[in-house]
């Protein structure tokens, strides 16, 4: 029992560290895409793996901690709002979709990608007090589908190759 708990703590740390590194890598190519907010979302690989290997509570926890850490390290208070809204909405949607057991990792990831961007647009609307950014939603909606699909495939291939189950599941 005690061993399992230690194992679990180590897994949390490992996944959070991995998410941080991936966030950093992604921040190195900020102007890669033409629209602000458009990105691949590599850290979602970590959240998906936590979700499938450990469970929804663990995935939510890893997601929350990595958003907090990434925003404090690379961002500011505003980016924390955006990241929290996007990350948490996407996380919750993915958990609910997985619970239905009707979709594979691909579908779950695609929905996560789309709702990540929806969350960010909603916060941008509130913070900037403007409706005009709705026009970005279209671009970010489609790019969310594409990014989610890529991330879903990467996560599936990664999970397949992971040897032992992480933590208890």
């Amino acid at each position: 029992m005690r061993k399992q708990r230690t194992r679990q703590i180590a897994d949390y740390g490992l996944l959070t560290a991995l998410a941080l590194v991936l966030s950093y890598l992604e921040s190195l190519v900020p102007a890669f895409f033409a629209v602000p907010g458009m990105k691949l979302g590599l850290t979602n690989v970590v959240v998906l793996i936590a979700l499938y290997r450990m469970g929804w509570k663990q995935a939510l926890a890893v997601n929350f901690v990595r958003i907090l850490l990434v925003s404090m390290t690379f961002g500011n208070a505003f980016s924390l709002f955006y990241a929290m809204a996007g990350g948490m909405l996407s996380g919750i949607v993915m958990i609910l979709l997985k619970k239905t057991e009707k979709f594979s990792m691909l579908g779950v990831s695609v929905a996560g990608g789309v709702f990540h961007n929806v969350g960010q647009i909603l916060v941008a609307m509130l913070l900037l007090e403007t409706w005009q950014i709705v026009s970005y939603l279209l671009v970010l909606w489609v790019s969310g589908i594409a990014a989610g699909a890529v991330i879903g495939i990467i996560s599936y291939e990664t999970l397949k190759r992971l040897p032992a189950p992480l933590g208890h599941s």
Partner: protein
Amino acid sequence: MKASIRKNDILLIAGLLVVAGVLALVLTLSRRDGRMVVIRYGSEVRGQYALSETLIVPIENGQGGENILHIEKGVVWMEEANCPDKLCVQQGKIKYAGESIICLPNAVVVEISGNDELALDGVTN
């Protein structure tokens, strides 16, 4: 471990694409011709011009950021910028109300408004 792709995934993606199509349609149908060009630096309005004018507007943000905006026959584009990524220049021409060109590094926002006078929407003081 389940298969990497299932029928429901395809349905989900197709459904999301349909929503995108509807969104595109709504955005296209609801767009209005622009009337004014509003230049903002952060939340501060730096200038506004009628879209019908023909003008070259230099924009300096006071911190080394310089952009040159072109307004001609109802169309607006960023001619030059000294920012590193030049996304605002690459963004090309805009003409409809609600469209904007944003130069993030220089914190310059160029918006087209559908009103003749500057409305207070989108501007927080």
